[in-house]
């Protein structure tokens, strides 16, 4: 019966909305738990109370200072970075029609690493000062992105062309970084390696404001393209026949995802697997409809990253394991699980 068909669909939609609500609640809980972790003891209710009070009227107690100046910046950066990388992964997997696509597929992180290495090893930066590493990483990420667009433009922005261009750029910047490491001092090399492992420890409110501003502008636009991303899963020709300007959607979303990735990794260093695994988990739970998949991937990315950060701070405390290592430790088992669970030839 036709009524039953729509009823079933709407019931599916309700389940997806329910999943988003549950994930949001889980994220709020995990944030509370994450902020309690550290040498200064506090309860989760203290955390929520101090955060709620501090939004309007920041206090001056030790607990206030620990939360607002030390722990919350780290957790907020975790939310922003996880959400941004998660949503970028989902978008890139859609426009490149490739289940292995993530913000790192395009090789722009290799460019970020080169920019950071240039500043750390040779002290060369686009701008000097205390943000030389951050600005270098950001600028070189954008340079790599535009190089990829320019190369892919010659092949009409097909998914294959974009991936090939990404691989070429990745190898180029990888080689340049290796050269810098070859001539660098042992101390500088250690700093570069630490940078590439990723960390939320460098987070501060300035960085969070920058990333939040980028996400506030870009995420609504990406969500606006959700339906187009759904249609593009059917292939370029079918998508065009359904009224999607495939080339424009691909260029706009690529520019936005590059901007998000650049904005995040310049402050955190390389954080892998979030953008790859987050969308896959969500696709299994809410399906491929990007109207739900994009927000779900953002929430899941934030959740995984904060959990990984908690694990990195507590497993070998007081030693902090770089978060890039921890996300891979969490991500690889998930990835293997998905690989085994994958049905047939599709994703």
């Amino acid at each position, binding site marked *: 019966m*036709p009524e039953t*068909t729509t009823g079933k669909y709407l019931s599916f939609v309700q389940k997806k909305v329910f999943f988003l609500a549950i994930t949001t609640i889980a994220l709020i809980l995990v944030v509370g738990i994450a902020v309690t972790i550290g040498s200064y003891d506090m309860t989760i209710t203290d955390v929520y109370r101090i955060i709620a009070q501090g939004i309007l009227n920041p206090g001056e107690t030790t607990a206030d200072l620990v939360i607002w100046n030390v722990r919350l910046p780290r957790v907020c950066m975790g939310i922003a970075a996880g959400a941004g990388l998660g949503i970028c992964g989902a978008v890139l997997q859609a426009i490149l029609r490739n289940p292995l696509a993530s913000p790192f597929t395009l090789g722009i992180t290799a460019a970020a690493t080169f920019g950071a290495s240039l500043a750390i090893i040779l002290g060369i930066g686009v701008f000097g000062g205390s943000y030389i590493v951050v600005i270098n990483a950001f600028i070189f990420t954008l340079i790599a992105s535009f190089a990829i667009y320019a190369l892919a433009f010659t092949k009409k922005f097909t998914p294959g062309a974009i991936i090939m261009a990404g691989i070429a750029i990745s190898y180029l910047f990888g080689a340049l970084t290796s050269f810098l490491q070859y001539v660098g001092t042992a101390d500088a090399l250690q700093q570069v390696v630490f940078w590439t492992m990723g960390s939320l420890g460098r987070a501060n409110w300035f960085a969070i404001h920058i990333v939040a501003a980028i996400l506030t502008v870009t995420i609504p636009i990406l969500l606006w393209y959700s339906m187009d991303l759904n249609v593009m*899963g059917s292939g370029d020709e079918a998508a065009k*026949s359904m009224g999607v300007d495939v080339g424009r959607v691909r260029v706009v979303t690529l520019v936005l995802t590059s901007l998000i990735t650049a904005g995040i990794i310049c402050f955190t260093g390389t954080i892998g697997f979030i953008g790859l695994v987050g969308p896959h988990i969500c696709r299994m739970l809410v*399906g491929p409809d990007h*109207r739900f998949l994009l927000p779900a991937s953002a929430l899941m990315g934030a959740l995984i990253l904060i959990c990984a950060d908690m694990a990195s701070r507590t497993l070998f405390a007081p030693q902090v394991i770089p978060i890039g290592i921890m996300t891979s430790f969490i991500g690889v088992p998930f990835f293997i699980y998905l690989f085994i669970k994958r049905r047939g030839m599709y994703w």
Partner: protein
Amino acid sequence: MVKIIIQDLSFRYRSAPVLQGLSFNVGKGKVFGLLGPNGSGKSTLIKCINQILRPQGRVVMDGNEIHRMHISDVARRIGYVPQSETMGMSMTVYDAVLMGRRVHMGWRPAKRDLGIVDRVLHDMKIENLAMEDLWELSGGQRQKVFIARALAQEPEVLLLDEPTSSLDLKHQLDTMETVRSLVSRSGISVVMAIHDINLAARYADTVAMIRKGSIYGIGSPRVLFTPQTVRDVYGVEATFLYDTTGNPVIVPVRGVEEGA
């Protein structure tokens, strides 16, 4: 009554011309078949009609030049079912058909959009598959889903690229009967590239035989299909039988050397 006028249409890929100076009309509420051997340009022609490819020449629909229309306006008026679709993300049949409403709806489907999805699922007799995974269906079922998706666009013209090429005999007939009944029920026009000359003879009102990117002949299948035209276009010697309704049933016998 003419629905689409194609005038002096040519198309070339980078290296070689594929279509050269094609002109013909497609009638309103009619099934127009495009026939020809592999590489003759049938699929390319289909894609030139709805702007997937950009040809030279004119494609005019109800007085409007298609290539001056926005891609969304074209999608509101012309639906397209590709020959095959690469396997993509796992999705339900309902979600796949809802994609056809993309050009009409905003971010969220309205009641009307859901109603239309219901209707086309019902019309295509696949409402029982609505919550099944698209990629776990048989080829014939999937073909119906793709036709349903195109119908969800509420098109005036439906372009079908080899709609029966990967189907067994039963599903071939099933698909063609569905197309025929759509045309008589809703009055849409259908342009289909088709390999099977017997299906074309049975279900098309008019056919164009294409050879090496040019039109060899246009007309009703009963008139156009002769041993000589089949030999000229396909390079095949064929025996002609006739069914009870007078439609030709063409039995290919042997290939003939070109120029023989």
